[in-house]
């Protein structure tokens, strides 16, 4: 019983942790496309900054992934 609750918790942990970063990465990507369309000559710099921003946003989802692995192990 305890094991199955752990697995349920793991699924919930990852699922819930993915909501915010999912929205965040969507916003970052959309804004980056907007910026690149407005100023194509800045595309390289926008892309680099976009990847850095995505990396920071993604970190939250990754913490949820780690928690899920710990809970389900």
């Amino acid at each position, binding site marked *: 019983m305890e094991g199955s609750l752990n697995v349920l918790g793991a699924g919930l942990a990852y699922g819930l942790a993915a909501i915010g970063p999912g929205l965040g990465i969507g916003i970052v990507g959309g804004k980056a496309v907007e910026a690149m369309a407005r100023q194509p000559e800045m595309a390289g710099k926008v892309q680099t900054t976009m990847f*850095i921003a995505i*990396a920071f946003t993604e970190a939250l989802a990754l913490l949820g*992934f780690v928690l899920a692995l710990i809970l389900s192990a």
Partner: protein
Amino acid sequence: MDQFGDKLASKLHHYSVLPWNDVYGSVEAAEAFVLTNYIFFLIISFVVTLGFMLLAARKLDMVPSGIGNVAEAGYEFIRNMCNEAMGKEGQKYAPFIATLFFFILFSNLIGLIPGALPGTGTIGVTATLAVMVFVLYNFIGFKKHGFIGYLKSFVPSGIREMGWGGKLTLGVFVFVLEVVGHFLRPLTLAVRLFANMFAGGMILGIFGIFVVIGVAQLSAGGFAIAGLSTVMLLIMYAFKLFVGFIQAYVFALLTSVYIGGALHADEH
């Protein structure tokens, strides 16, 4: 449906850490020092990277050709990225970052060969790389700004100019937050690469099982599922090729950003 569960379990088992010569065996690698399936392919990707670079450097011309051209384009890509993230001072770290990039890239791409595994698909390997980066950038920061100077730079200059009251309350708070943030960096570096490579391989495996099971049904519905899964498998395969490249790039980019941050720690 029992057949599906068994096949899925055996396929997922293939992705766990096993002794290298017993990939379909039932016993997971329990001892600490045993050559596992992931490390076996990691060594292969190490040899491939070394061989690729030696081949590329064998004939150095002003106008590169063939394999040298590929290596040079990749290195130039990384060098430009380093230039942007670290400035002139960081140029001497470009070879290190390019090494990381090529090694991670080859090990990701080798994981796409059917039957092979990405060396970066196990947390031990990625954690080693991430801790290496963590130690390096902190060492650079301490060396450049001195022990106290580097620690001071964790607190923004606005707070540093406050009186003692501000320094003791807000300053200590921000300092603790920054230290925690610094320790999260290697964790996220390691988990990002590991999770992408591990989960990507697993998705390919699951669609592969769908194809096999669909064909085995010998019915119209089964063939439809198999056909759909084949299309999805091809799409995911292309996507994983892209992800392997992007993850190597992101790892290299973040490394250069962290080193750049340590180099220019006193500027904000």
